[in-house]
């Protein structure tokens, strides 16, 4: 085990895969010489050379389109979009082209590509550089959607995403880049579609994703001090979605809370809530409660942004008051 930051785990995952597979190529804005605006890719240019680690113009459609064209013809490209908010400028390529081409061609075309992007709030960047957009991707058939919360998962899930034969949207959380954690030595590959139980408790199940996972864990510690013992599940991958781990936990706790950074409407937690309501309705001891960002674009000021996202305090109070 070595301690790595979340951002260093990105580079470690990429390096691991580029080392073992010379069809893995990286493209994106400022990723090569500058090592990425979030410094998640430093050293890779020096290690793998300018052909495999390539800077692009500010052309999100060209970046994602080129990744698609290369993926259908023998490469395994990893494209970086600097901020997830920018997927709106290439949503046609992602949602209409990359997601649908396999289906429309009845399987003639396979697209083993990864789109990495910096997602989420906490940096006081305002409404166009802070969104949590994993639910946009989740709504489109044909995309896989991954959002890690720990450095070990960054490396392991990124490796799994690169090896996967389907297009994967890989959402890295901006406010987690500086966090540190143990990462297994040697080759590390996780499996897509497997949620992880981060804490076991018998009173309620809290399901969280990315930056909401550590907050849910903190809230669970406070609740435990009050005698409410919660399970915290890190969803990790929205598509494929490990419903069995979630259903199994709710079956024993009989309560479900989701903690979502996305604005309220159609967040990923709504899908999980609907599955649990449909399949475990009679096991529930109380309503399913979604703890989300309110339905607003994100404000910039620290005092406002902090109060907009689900806080440890809000998670704690919501669960305590509805228990």
């Amino acid at each position, binding site marked *: 085990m070595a301690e790595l930051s979340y951002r260093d785990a990105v580079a470690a995952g990429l390096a691991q895969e580029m080392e073992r597979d010379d069809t893995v190529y990286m493209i994106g804005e400022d990723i090569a010489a500058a090592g990425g605006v979030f410094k998640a890719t430093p050293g890779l240019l020096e290690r793998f050379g300018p052909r495999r680690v*390539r800077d692009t113009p500010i*052309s999100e459609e*060209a970046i994602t*389109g080129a990744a698609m064209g290369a993926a259908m013809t*023998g490469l395994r490209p990893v494209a970086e979009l600097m901020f997830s908010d920018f997927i709106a400028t290439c949503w046609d390529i992602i949602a209409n082209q990359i997601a649908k081409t396999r289906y429309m*061609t*009845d399987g003639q075309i396979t697209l083993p590509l990864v789109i990495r992007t910096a997602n989420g709030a906490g940096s006081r960047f305002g409404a166009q550089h802070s969104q949590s957009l994993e639910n946009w991707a989740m709504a489109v058939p044909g995309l896989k959607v991954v959002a890690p919360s720990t450095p070990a998962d960054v490396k392991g899930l990124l490796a799994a995403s690169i090896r996967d034969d389907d297009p994967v949207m890989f959402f890295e959380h901006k406010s987690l880049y500086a966090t540190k954690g143990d990462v297994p030595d040697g080759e590390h590959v996780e499996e897509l579609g497997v949620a992880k139980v981060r804490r076991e408790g018998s009173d309620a199940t809290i399901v969280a994703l990315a930056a909401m996972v550590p907050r849910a864990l903190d809230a669970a510690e406070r609740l435990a001090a009050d005698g409410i013992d919660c399970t915290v599940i890190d969803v990790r991958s929205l598509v*494929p979605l490990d419903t069995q781990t979630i259903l199994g936990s709710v079956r024993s706790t009989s309560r479900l809370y989701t903690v979502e950074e996305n604005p309220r409407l159609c967040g990923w937690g709504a899908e999980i809530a609907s599955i649990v309501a449909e399949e475990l309705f009679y096991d529930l001891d109380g309503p399913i409660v979604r703890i989300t960002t309110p339905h607003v674009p994100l404000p910039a000021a620290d005092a406002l942004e902090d109060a907009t996202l689900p806080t440890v305090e809000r998670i704690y109070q919501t669960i305590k008051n509805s228990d």
Partner: protein
Amino acid sequence: MTGAGETTEVPAQSEVTGYAPAELDRTTRLELYRKMVALRLFEQRAYDLFLQNLVKGTSHLSLGQEAVAAGFGQAMRADDYTFCTYRGHAHTLVRGASMTGVMAELLGRSNGILGGKGGSMHLTSVEHYAMGSYAIVGAHMPIAAGAAWSAMERDSGQVAVCFFGDGTTNIGAFHEALNLAVVWKLPVVFVCENNLYMEYTPIGSVTAVPSPAADRASAYGLERVLVDGNDPDELYGCASRFLERARDGDGPALIEALTYRKGGHSRADPGKYRPDDEVERWMARDPIDLYRGRLLELGFGAPELDEIDSGELAAVDRATQEAKDGQAPDVGAIETQVFADGGNAWRN
């Protein structure tokens, strides 16, 4: 010369550069003729079947524009990539996709080349390196650049050829793709089939420059290339030259081929928005009529050409019958091929 805001006239032939090879062998000429005839007859049949309500949804025909597909199709190496638009029957067929498979796809049958999942606007035949027909204007241009990038990195010697319309030159993806292709020196040839109209609007009335592609070439440091899009010899020569350049590592090209639709934009559009005299002038320049005339002048025998005509008609008849004989796709296919494991499982 027309300027911004005016409607486009048929550009003067004097503006068009000559690319036809001085000498062309018999076989190549006959093959160019055969390809155009096959595409014409197929498209006419598709139109008939549309009027009979057998082709559902929409279809965009290449009637009148067959020379572009034939000229490039003839010049391309068997493993060069084709990327085309919803107006893609001709470009897909010319690479070798089966007429039956394409016709059956238009009819929504299980023996369609996409099993009925894609339809007219998404024809693809990867085994023939026809890498897809794209129905969102401009989207395939960066994708073609990506295939060229991969060919370059794999050192495969393949070139990607990307066909699109005049209207496509005004969407962002066109500019993003061209810039990237030049900066990375990619083996990709972009071919604008300027048929003077987007759907119904004349391109000149919405474009800052008179030649929508050729006049933009200089912005990307590319040569200005305007070619007669109704002359297969010109197109074959032009394609050969720029394919070779790209294959040799000398980077991309942007070609504008001047052509005209025989009919409307799609479905049953009668194309009434086009002035009569313009239509008349272009109908007098039908690529197949002109080429047949040239071949006869060059000493090819009429029976030889007639034999090609009847052979291709028989092929289209056969394809039509086989397509009609196809079954409706099994509804079990609906939830297949979303993901690489062949299914659509998004949860356990």
